[in-house]
C-alpha cells in the first residue's frame, strides 16, 4: 500500500461530496487517555475529512470513554480487537504506549489499515506536518509523530536549514509538570533520543541534541522551546529570520497557539529561536501546549492521509 498521491480533492463543509455521498474517512482512536480524548474532540469539532467511528481502550471507567459516549461516538474496551473487527476503519490513531504500538503495528498493517502512531515506538517514519504537509516523503502505512518536543522544535530547525546548512541543532523543551503524563515520564530517555533524531532526520541538522525539562511551577508555565542552531557559515540574517517567520505561520495553520517569543537572536554562526505553545483547551488545559501540538499534528497527518485515500479512490474508481 502506498500513501503517495497527487492533488487533493474538494469536499463540502460537511464532509460530503456534491451528490451527498459521505466522503469522510472512518477512523479509530486507540487509547482513551488525555491524548486520545483530546484528539477525538478535535476530530469531532474540526475535521471534515475524518469521521470518528470508534474510540477504543481497555479501561471501562476512563473519563475519555464517558466523553466519547456523550458525543455519540461508538466506544469499546476491546482495544485493538475492536478496531480489527471493523473493516470500514481505514486510519487508526494509536495513543496507547510504545510497547502496545509495537504489538498493534503488524496487526494493523496486515488488516490494511494506516497507522498514525502518537507513541515513541517509531515503527514508521517520522512525520512533522509543517515540513511535509501532504506527506510526500512518506510511503509507509505507518507514520510516527516523533514527540511533542519534536513537533515544536523540528519545524524551526528545518526553517533554518532550508536557507543555511545547519552543522548542529540543540533543542530545549520545557514542559509544565502537570501535563507530563506517566507515559512521558516512564520513557523520558526515548523522548530525549527520539527528539534529537527527528531534528537530524527531518530538521536536517548534521548533528543534534535534545534536552527535556519538567517545570512544576503553579500556576503552570506555558510549554516553551528554545531552538539553537549552529550554521556552517555566517548566515544571511534576513533570510534566516524570514524563513523562521514563514515557518511559524505554517505551523500556526494547524497549531493556532504556536508563536515566536522574540525575533531570532544571532550570535556569529549561532541562531537562537524561542517559541511557546498555548493549547487550544479542547479537552486539556491551555498550558498543556505540549499535548495540544501532538494531537494537532496527528490530526493534520490523518487528514493528509485521508486526502490521498480520496484521490486513490477517485483515480481507481472513476470520477464521482
Amino acid at each position: 500500500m502506498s500513501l503517495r498521491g497527487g492533488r487533493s480533492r474538494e469536499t463540502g463543509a460537511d464532509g460530503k461530496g456534491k451528490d451527498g455521498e459521505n466522503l469522510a474517512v472512518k477512523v479509530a482512536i486507540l487509547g482513551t487517555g488525555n491524548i486520545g480524548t483530546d484528539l477525538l474532540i478535535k476530530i469531532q469539532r474540526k475535521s471534515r475529512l475524518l469521521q470518528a467511528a470508534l474510540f477504543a481502550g481497555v479501561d471501562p471507567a476512563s473519563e475519555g470513554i464517558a466523553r466519547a459516549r456523550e458525543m455519540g461516538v461508538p466506544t469499546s474496551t476491546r482495544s485493538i480487537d475492536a478496531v480489527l473487527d471493523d473493516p470500514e476503519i481505514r486510519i487508526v490513531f494509536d495513543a496507547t504506549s510504545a510497547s502496545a504500538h509495537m504489538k498493534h503495528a503488524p496487526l494493523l498493517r496486515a488488516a490494511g489499515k494506516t497507522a498514525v502512531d502518537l507513541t515513541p515506538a517509531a515503527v514508521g517514519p517520522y512525520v512533522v506536518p509543517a515540513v511535509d504537509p501532504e506527506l510526500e516523503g512518506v510511503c509507509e502505512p505507518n507514520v510516527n509523530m516523533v514527540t511533542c518536543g519534536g513537533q515544536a522544535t523540528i519545524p524551526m530547525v528545518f526553517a533554518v536549514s532550508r536557507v543555511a546548512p545547519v552543522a548542529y541543532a540543540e533543542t530545549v523543551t520545557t514542559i509544565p509538570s502537570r501535563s507530563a503524563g506517566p507515559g512521558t515520564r516512564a520513557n523520558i530517555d526515548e523522548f530525549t533520543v527520539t527528539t534529537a533524531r527527528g531534528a537530524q532526520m527531518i530538521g536536517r541538522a548534521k548533528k543534534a541534541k535534545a534536552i527535556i525539562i519538567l517545570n512544576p511551577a503553579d500556576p503552570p508555565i506555558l510549554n516553551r522551546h528554545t531552538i539553537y542552531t549552529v550554521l556552517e557559515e555566517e548566515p544571511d540574517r534576513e533570510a534566516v529570520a524570514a524563513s523562521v517567520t514563514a515557518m511559524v505561520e505554517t505551523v500556526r495553520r494547524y497549531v493556532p497557539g504556536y508563536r515566536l517569543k522574540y525575533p531570532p537572536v544571532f550570535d556569529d554562526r549561532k541562531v537562537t529561536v524561542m517559541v511557546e505553545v498555548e493549547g487550544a483547551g479542547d479537552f486539556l488545559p491551555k498550558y498543556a501546549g505540549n499535548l495540544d501540538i501532538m494531537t494537532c499534528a496527528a490530526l493534520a497527518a490523518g487528514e493528509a492521509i485521508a486526502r490521498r485515500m480520496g484521490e486513490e479512490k477517485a483515480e481507481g474508481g472513476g470520477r464521482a
Partner: protein
Amino acid sequence: MSEKRRIRVIDTTLRDGSHSLSHQYGAQDIGRVAAALERAGLDTIEVSHGDGLGGSSIQYGFGKLTDQEALRAARAALHRTRLAVLLLPGIGVKEDLEMAYHEGARVARIATHVTEADISAQHMALAKEIGMEVIGFLMLAHMEPPAKVLEQAKLMESYGADVVYVVDSAGAMLPDDARRKVSLLREGLAVAVGFHAHNNLGLAIGNTLAAIEEGATVVDGCLAGLGAGAGNTPTEVLAAVLDRLGYETGIDLWAVMDAAEDVLRPLMPRPQVIDKAALSLGYAGVYSSFMLHTHRAAGKLGLDPRDILVELGRRRVVGGQEDMIMDVALQLAEKRAKAKGVL
C-alpha cells in the same frame, strides 16, 4: 568507648567544580586532581560535565573534554577511590551511563528536580542492572516542604536508590530547613540520607553539619570550595571540622589541604567568593549554575545580573532552564527600552 561515627565524603571538584571553570578542565588537570584526592583518602569522587553526563551543550556550555575523555583521565589516576558520575534524565541518556560504566564509573548519581523523582526510574533501573551503586539527587530541595521531599525520596528509594540526597542547588537553605528535611528522610527511609550544599548564603559548612547531626551519613564537598555559584562545601575545611567533632571520614587532613592548595588553586580562573551575584542566587533561590550564564547575558544586554536572577527566582525556574536566562534578559531589555521611549 563508643566508636566514632563514620561520614562518607564524596568529592565533586571534577563535576560541580567544573562550573567554576566553565567546564574547561584538561585531561592532565583531571589526572592530577584525581590522584591528589586519592592520596587524601577520598573514597568516592565524581567526574562529569557540571550539568552531568551529556551536559556539554550550547545550553550549559561545551566541555573542553567529552565525558568519556574526562572519565578516562580520572580512571588512569585512580586505584582505590571509586568513580562516580552524575546524570540528569532529560539531559543525559542511558547510552551515556553505559559508556560511564565501561570507563570505570561504579556510582551513578541520578538527579531530578525535587518534585520530579519519577523521571529517574529508567536510569536508576539501568544503573542497578549493570551493577552500579545508585544515589538519588533531589535538586532545589529548598523549594518544597519536607513532606514533599520525603514523598519524592521514597519514590527514588523504590527505584533502587542506595542513598537519597537533599540537594540545596540554590544555596538557599537555612540550617533549620536542612535539619527538618534530613531528619524527616532519616525517619521515613530505610536507605542512607545524603546532603549537598552550596555556599551562596555562607552556610555550606553549617548546613552540612546540621544535616550530619540529623543523621545524614553521605555529604559532598569540593576542594577549595569550588562549584557553581559561590561554590560547594570546601572538602578540606569539612574534613578538619568533622575531625574536630570526632567523626571518622578516612580523609588525611594534610593531604587534602595540599590537594586544595597546591593542585587545585593554580587551576582556578578566579577566587571562589560570595560576590553579589552569588549571594543573589541564595537570596532569590535560583539554581547556582545559572550564575556565569547570567553574567554573560547581563553583559550582552547591559543589565544588572541581580535583576535577572531575582526575576528567574520569582518565576520559579528550575535547574536546567538556562535558556530562561536569555528569555528573561530579553524581556527586561524590552521593558527598559519601552520605559525610555515613554520618557
